[in-house]
């Protein structure tokens, strides 16, 4: 891995009590430098509230959240250190995308040219002069990212950036975030979709009902949540089943003709097939019903509170 062991973001016993509802409940976690961390939880889990407390927009009832030991509101020149994308629709309807960015540049003392550079980065240059109300949801998300990148910050925070994007937009977002992380940035991105995080995140923090459920590298957390499975297709199902029984793997035939193998890694399955001279047509690692496990983990804590 080689990632430095420092933490860029530390959330420490953070609590937010709304009148009757404890939206965030004694939540603690940390986000490591130079990695993509997925902040996962069902709707209403308190993700947005947590991120807004982190960014000094909402006052915590208790606890605190810091960037390199400093509160956001105490950061010198915050947008040069932390970039945030919160709602997709947070620009004036009658203002052009470029003017929206320039407005931020002026307040932050950045040159206007940064607006054009970040528009280019997110591919919005052709729509720079169009009014915000004419933007599609995907364009609004792109503008949000452009705004977050104006100060070229080391830390990026995004709240459900995939919401409302089409599959192509989601892929674009994923590639961009990965590229930004590869440049050494720390990325914290919230989502209620586990599948998306599997493809993007290095680490995950899972919350439900305002509480921490689990935190750690994505493979570790997911591994503990559901056992690995290997899907194989072969014209010699019987021979393969015998060979796999020898290495203590369990085989369950599926309705589509494939076999689902648990208790062995893909390499072990392939090796067993090779030594038994069994022809394979497909060999894939799969996680057994992770969404299901995620839902179980957070069961009874999701939904309307």
């Amino acid at each position, binding site marked *: 891995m080689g990632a430095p062991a420092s933490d860029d973001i530390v959330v420490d016993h953070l609590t937010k009590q709304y009148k009757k509802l404890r939206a965030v409940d004694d939540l603690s976690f940390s986000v490591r430098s130079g990695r993509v961390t997925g902040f996962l939880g069902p709707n209403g889990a308190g993700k947005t509230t947590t991120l807004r407390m982190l960014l000094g927009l909402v006052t915590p009832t208790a606890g605190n959240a810091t960037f390199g030991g400093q509160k956001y509101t105490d950061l010198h020149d915050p947008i040069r250190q932390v970039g945030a994308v919160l709602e997709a629709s*947070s620009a004036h309807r009658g203002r052009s995308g470029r003017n929206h960015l320039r407005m931020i540049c002026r307040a932050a003392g950045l040159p206007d040219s940064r607006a054009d550079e970040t528009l280019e980065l997110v591919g919005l240059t052709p729509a720079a002069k169009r009014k915000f109300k004419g933007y599609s949801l995907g364009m609004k998300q792109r503008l949000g990212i452009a705004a977050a990148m104006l100060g070229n910050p080391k830390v990026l925070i995004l709240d459900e950036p995939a919401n409302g994007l089409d599959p192509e937009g989601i892929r674009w977002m994923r590639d961009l975030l990965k590229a930004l992380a590869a440049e050494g940035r720390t990325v914290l991105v919230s989502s209620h979709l586990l599948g998306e995080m599997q493809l993007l995140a290095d680490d995950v923090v899972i919350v439900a009902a305002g509480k921490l459920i689990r935190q750690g590298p994505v493979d570790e957390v997911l591994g503990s949540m559901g056992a690995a499975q290997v899907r194989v297709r072969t014209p010699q199902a019987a021979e393969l089943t015998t060979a796999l029984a020898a290495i203590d793997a369990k085989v369950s035939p599926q309705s589509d003709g494939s076999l689902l193998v648990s208790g062995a890694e893909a390499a072990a399955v392939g090796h067993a097939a090779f030594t038994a001279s069994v022809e394979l047509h497909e060999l894939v690692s799969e996680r057994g019903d992770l969404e299901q496990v995620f839902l179980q983990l957070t069961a009874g804590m999701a939904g309307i509170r």
Partner: protein
Amino acid sequence: MNLINAELFKLRTTAIWWIMGIVLLPLYAASVLANWAQFANTSPDDAAGTDQAEQVRAALEPINVATSLYTSGQFFGILIVLLLSAIIVTSEFFHLTATTTFLVTPKRESVILAKFGAAAIVGVFVWLLTTVLNMIVVPPIMSQLDLSTQLGEGAVWRAIGLNLLAFVLWAVLGVGLGVLIRNQLAATLILGIVYVIGTSVVGLIFYLLTQYVAHWFENLQVLVPTTASALMISGTELPGNPPRWVGAAVLIGYAIVAGVVGTLITKRRDIS
């Protein structure tokens, strides 16, 4: 300075400034005409009581005619400045841009201070606009009323200066009230209606209180912001009115209270 620049940029890059401009110009023209007509048609003999006749006579002195005419457009100009100042705040919440604004500048008192500054500049700008127009159109009106331009009189320039003070104070007041009434529609409606109709309604209430309850209520009328600002710019002391500085003090008081309360509220409020 960056922040004030950004606030003015926000105002410039939406349609609101020219909409307000289009609204203001006819209202300004109407004010000038109404002022003119009033001075052309009133004579002291029309007034009923001796006190009133005295006031009318004073108002018709050339110097007082001049101060009124050279500050034409104050009523509606200030209305526009009041609404724009409130919108400088409320639009942040209406368009959900408050999040962006406070992410860039988490020290919220700086944002509010910048908004006060930007609103004051808007106030100066509208004052400048109406004053320049007055300088162009009023001299011919004065000569038509058989009066000299009166531009040599210190009192006229003092009235113009105090008119500027009124614009700035109302701008500050508008920002403070915009924080208090965060809903854009509510803020524009309430401020607009209270400013335009409220003055007469409150005037009527004070008239009734003065007539039927106690005479000293009359002296409290200066606590009404619009009355205070009218009093502040009136050229010379009119008989039966409190001194001019009282009007200024009342307005400054309101502006400070609105500013401090507005800043405190903004600092505490959750932005979600």
